[in-house]
């Protein structure tokens, strides 16, 4: 286990899923890293990403297992040309992306992290792979308030990675 691993894992997941949100045109908030802005609050559709973990376990000498849970919360406000399946479309895109492995890189600004423009400093720690025994789940909460016309869907993914510390 290295102290940089949780940061690399959080950074790589946030980067991967934020890129997807940008493709879908959704403002994104990654918990504990981004601030809520006016643009985010005033958007019709938004996505929030929560990363829990890693939960690490030493399997043998310098050989580690890391489990990570990722939750994506989609929020859609009603209005415009209403499409009842709009939130399902976004949820499907995230569910598809979260069913694939996520590469973990040494992103950051500290010693040992990747230095932009210097490929020799790039380290691929491994890939977080969706756990076989657990489904990537979509939980549809529907309209979350009796009056507010807001729908929310959560997509949960559980990942595992085995790493040999060098």
């Amino acid at each position, binding site marked *: 286990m290295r102290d940089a691993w949780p940061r690399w894992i959080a950074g790589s997941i946030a980067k991967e899923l934020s890129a997807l949100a940008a493709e879908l045109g959704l403002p994104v908030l990654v918990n504990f890293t981004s601030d809520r802005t006016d643009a985010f609050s005033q958007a019709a559709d938004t996505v929030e990403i929560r990363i829990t973990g890693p939960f690490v376990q030493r399997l043998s000498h310098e050989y580690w297992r890391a489990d990570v849970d990722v939750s994506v*919360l989609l929020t859609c406000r009603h209005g*415009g040309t209403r*499409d009842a399946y709009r939130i399902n479309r976004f949820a499907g895109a995230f569910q598809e992306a979260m069913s694939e492995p996520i590469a973990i890189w040494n992103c950051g600004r500290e010693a040992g992290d990747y230095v932009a423009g210097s490929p020799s400093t790039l380290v691929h720690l491994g890939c977080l792979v969706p756990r076989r025994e657990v489904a990537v789940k979509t939980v549809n909460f529907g309209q*979350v308030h*009796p009056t*507010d016309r807001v729908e929310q869907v959560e997509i949960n993914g559980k990942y595992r990675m085995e790493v040999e510390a060098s």
Partner: protein
Amino acid sequence: MYQDRHIRTALYMLKRQYGGPLSVYKQLDSVVTFETGQVTVTATAYHVKRAVILPTVWKRVKSPAAPSPVGSRDVGLKSFIVDRADIPGVVLTQNDWVVYDGWRYQIEEIDASEFDAGWLITARLVVGSTSDNTVVVAANANVSPVAGADSE
């Protein structure tokens, strides 16, 4: 009878002092085409020249679906008083809404004042939500171009 007159006088004074234009939408139907997901809402629009507009309380509401503060949203709570004489025969419910200053406020609570004088409406605006493409099937005589004004 005197109470009735006092209430109507008070309502008139409030309308003069705090009055503003308001559109009241009475929902008639909401239909989803399941194959395409298209939602079509039909409503009757009533344009009220002077409703009593009370201040807005802005707050951030936590989502029950996620741990705080994930999924929270910003809402504006606002009260309106509408003279029943301005929308005669209309019975409002929580499925109806009002549009003030281009923003849609969904009705949360309705108090009917005594002697059928007015409706006290408490309504919520969710920041980020916009008006639906509502088909307005009827409007009262005073209405200006409601459909074009806010797509309701």
